[in-house]
């Protein structure tokens, strides 16, 4: 968790610190909400799983009975009626409509089956023999299809919920393990950076102060020197006036005299 890698690319300013702080707050609220949503969905999911289990068991039983009633038809009619039934069926008797159900913001399609009454296309199949078996078989299969429809809507809900739960959990985890730490890191970084700046500033100020002090010291020294100088000159003037002209044998060189 080196601060440099796991943080956002922001300039460490007080403004971005403010932004980051509100972002962290937002992330935490969002995390709570999403967590709650995920829990609600998971609850629903568990319920659906349970119902799928029941529906599948029921389907097993119903399909078995249905297959057996078909065997009864074969026994009673003594032949294949499949083609005849296929050809005489004109309009669907068993229909399915869909509606939507809202579970914490997720739309789950629910299939609902209904039968249109008075629509019995192959009512006369097996008129000579086995008609009752055919009708009974049809009823059993209608029940089987009903179970299938129920199972289908559960399965669809299952798939959709599964997907949604995955997404939500991913978001929750992303917020919990990536966004919040990163924002926190950024805040930490900005804070440390700001402290650093503060310290630098302080140091700089100190330096400036030092320099200024030094400068004043030098100026003072110069002033003093000047003053001293001036005083000295005043003294020399007095000496000249008392001591008379320059030193002849002194430093002044006489021009060479050439004869």
């Amino acid at each position, binding site marked *: 968790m080196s601060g440099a890698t796991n943080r956002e690319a922001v300039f460490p300013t007080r403004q971005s610190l403010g932004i980051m702080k509100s972002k962290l707050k937002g992330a935490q609220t969002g995390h709570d909400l999403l967590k709650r949503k995920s829990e609600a969905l998971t609850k629903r999911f568990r319920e659906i799983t349970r119902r799928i289990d029941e529906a599948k068991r029921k389907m097993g039983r119903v399909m*078995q*009975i249905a*297959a*057996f*009633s078909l*065997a*009864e038809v*074969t*026994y*009673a009619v*003594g*032949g*294949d009626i499949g*083609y*005849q039934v296929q*050809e*005489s069926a004109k309009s669907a008797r068993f229909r399915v409509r869909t509606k939507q159900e809202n579970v914490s913001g997720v739309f789950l399609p629910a299939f609902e089956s209904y039968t249109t009454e008075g629509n*019995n296309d192959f*009512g*006369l*199949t*097996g*008129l*000579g*023999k*086995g*008609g*009752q*078996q055919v*009708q*009974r*078989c049809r009823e*059993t299969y209608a029940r089987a299809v009903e179970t299938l429809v129920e199972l289908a809507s559960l399965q669809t809900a299952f798939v959709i919920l599964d997907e949604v739960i995955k997404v939500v959990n991913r978001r929750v985890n992303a917020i919990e393990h990536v966004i919040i730490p990163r924002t926190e890191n950024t805040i930490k970084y900005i804070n440390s950076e700001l402290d650093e700046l503060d310290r630098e500033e302080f140091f700089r100020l100190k330096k400036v102060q030092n320099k200024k002090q030094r400068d004043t010291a030098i100026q003072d020294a110069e002033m003093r020197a000047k003053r001293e100088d001036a005083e000295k000159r005043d003294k020399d003037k007095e000496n000249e006036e008392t001591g008379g002209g320059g030193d002849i044998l002194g430093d002044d060189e006489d021009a060479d005299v050439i004869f």
Partner: protein
Amino acid sequence: MEGLFFNANNGYIEGIVRGYRNGLLTSNNYNNLVQCETIDDLKLQLGPAYGDFLASLPPNPSTSTLAAKTTDKLISEFRYVRANAVGSLAKFMDYLTYGYMIDNVALLITGTLHERDTRELLDRCHPLGWFETMPVLCVATNIEELYNSVLIETPLAPYFKGSLSHQDLDELNIEIVRNTLYKNYLEDFHNFVNTDSEMAGTPTAEVMTEILEFEADRRAINITLNSFGTELSKADRKKLYPAFGRLYPEGSFMLSRADDIEGVRLAVEGVNDYKTYFDQAGMGQSSGPGNMSGGSGSDGKSLEDLFYQKEMEISKGAFTRQFTFAIVYAWVKLREQEIRNITWIAECIAQNQKERIGNYISVF
């Protein structure tokens, strides 16, 4: 007297058919069959009776292929008998196949009506009802053509004539067409066995009349029961009742006016056998009609079961007579029931529904 020259023409056939009858499964065999755990066991148990026909089946065959193979045996035996038959017996056997032809023709008509490729339907046709001109039916593309040029050529033409026009084929439900044909067929068959010079007054006429009368009554009762709650009107229903049988004419008339099961029960009151069946099946009281009331596992037999039982008993009885063609008919019916029984047992084994496995009908 009638038996004096019977063997000259038909003795061989009679011997063969009686031999076939002895090859039918007995209740002992059935007891073994119902104890099978898998279809393979079943196949093994059927080995002695069906031998070659089941040999080509893969391990654990489906019940439908099993049924198809067992039917194949019936077909090949039937064809053998038919090939050896002469004279009236040949004609009698042709009559026997007309029933299956009606089913096939109905199937093809359905295909034509819905403008399907009827060629693929030929595979689905019952092989016993195969006739030479049947593939020609596939040539027709519309119903008028079918009626005017193709159906006329089939052996079933007389049954269409007079009772069904080509508009009827288009408008009527195919089931009504089929049952109309079947009614005409039964009447014709009945007429044939009672008037043909070789058969009139012989045991054949006697036995066949009994069988056909029963068949006619069974159809009448079934049609009535199955038509409740459908769009079939009473007048149309009346047209589907064969004009002979033990119920004809009073019973048929009452059947045509029946509104519910109770009405049917009153209509058959006059014939003791049927009355007993209705009482046994508990009809007209609470439970619905129909075979083995779906899944409830009632041990009481249903009306259809009782009818099948009766048919089998009549067929068995036919073998007690000598010098009669009826044994061919009886043998075919017995063999069909046997195939149904095998299929039923196989289904029960395949679907693990052992508690209903005893619902087969065995008369030997």
